[in-house]
């Protein structure tokens, strides 16, 4: 086949865009989101103040669409397309990397479903003015609480594995040694996000504010 005959880089660029959007802005937003929400660990009032600050940024709708919704829709949509073109084979080859390959797909889908529901309950139903009390009320429903934990863990896992993937797939971690370090970094990020995410959910559920001593 001659090179000029199919000289199309579109497929390449779309795939790279999927990979890039996973880290920036989707992964970066997840970090920001966990950070902002961890104000719940300080106090109800601190949380509401932080929320209001974010809810009143200039160009809010444009920022939301450009840096959050569209990239996420693209990463999620193209992620499903990538998934459909792969064929898992962990039963024949149950190696760690292969397990991560498969779990990356399921956790992505869980995160997608979760984020859709989360946006509906916390962004749509509250008209973008969600408060501590709104989240607290929602979490009185045990199914909502369970889904919240699952969503947080799936997203954290997916981001952790994703960072490892990203560093390998852009050749930023090229040697076996560097890829092992990238794996350790991904695992650390995944673990840290899981712990912080779970603490935040617990905070809303139990009205628990471990950092409220700042205010005393």
């Amino acid at each position, binding site marked *: *086949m001659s*090179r000029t005959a*199919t*000289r*199309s*880089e579109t*497929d*390449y*660029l779309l*795939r*790279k865009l999927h990979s890039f959007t996973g880290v920036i802005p989707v992964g970066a937003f997840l970090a920001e989101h966990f950070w902002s929400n961890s104000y719940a660990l300080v106090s109800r009032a601190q949380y509401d103040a932080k929320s209001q600050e974010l809810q009143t940024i200039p160009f809010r709708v444009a920022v939301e669409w450009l840096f959050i919704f569209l990239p996420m829709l693209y990463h999620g949509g193209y992620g499903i397309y*990538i998934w*459909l*073109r*792969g*064929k*898992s*084979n962990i039963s*024949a*080859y149950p*190696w760690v*990397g*292969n397990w*991560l*390959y*498969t779990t990356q797909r399921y956790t992505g889908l869980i995160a997608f479903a979760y984020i859709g529901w989360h946006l509906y309950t916390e962004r749509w139903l509250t008209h973008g003015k969600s408060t501590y009390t709104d989240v607290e009320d929602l979490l009185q429903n045990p199914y909502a609480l369970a889904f919240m934990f699952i969503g947080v863990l799936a997203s954290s896992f997916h981001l952790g594995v994703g960072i*490892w*993937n990203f560093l*390998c*797939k*852009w*050749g*930023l*971690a*090229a*040697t*076996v040694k560097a*890829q092992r370090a990238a794996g350790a970094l991904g695992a650390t990020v995944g673990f840290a996000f899981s712990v912080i995410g779970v603490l935040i959910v617990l905070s809303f559920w139990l009205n628990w504010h471990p950092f409220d001593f700042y205010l005393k």
Partner: protein
Amino acid sequence: MPDAKEVIVRVKRQVSPKGTPYWEEFALPWRPAMNVIICLRDIAENPVTREGQRTTPISYDSNCLEEVCGSCAMLINGKARMACSALVDKLDQPIRLEPFSKFPVVRDLAVDRQFMFESLKRVKSWIPIDGTYDLGEGPRMAPETQEKAYPLSRCISCGSCLEVCPQVNDNNKFIGAAIISQVRLFNMHPTGAMHAKERIAALMEPGGIQDCANAQNCVKACPKDIPLTESIAEMNRQAWKQALVGWLVG
């Protein structure tokens, strides 16, 4: 093992590329240092199934018998292996032999790896040294580069890395790890480097390097211990630099 003196082999057979697969079982007398190719030869000498039914010898590819030609790759107990280096004493019985699943079957255990050869052509996996006149000696290769290149040059095109890759399947014509690693090898060569950009451009075509999803099965399966994941990462870096930054800085 059912009987220490017997080796039980189950073979997935298929008479033609479009034929329906079926299984046959054989009981062979055990011999010391027996490998899977020896089993297949023993069956050819006396093609009688375990039930005593006369059958045809089994088609399979093999040549070197020392893991350097790459032709004897097949699924042994469900895993991609080289038949000539798969020792019977180290395998669970009955030994199940199947053709590779990612390539078209020619007959029985013989498959057609043309897809790999087409991909090698697509990325110009060679070093052009012929001109209309004598081009003279090429530049010399630094010993450090030689040390990196040698392991890559051991690829035997067996296709094991494609067979185990979840991204190589009917829905996705991913060229696979071996081809990406060969581009690295030829781009590393001082004369080969003169066509480096063309090879990288070919790697970014549909089915190219972007389809690698980092499951890293290839490096585990490669019988020649080629550092495939390093090759892929290295070529990935060169590719995005060429695609994304090339138009800015040349």
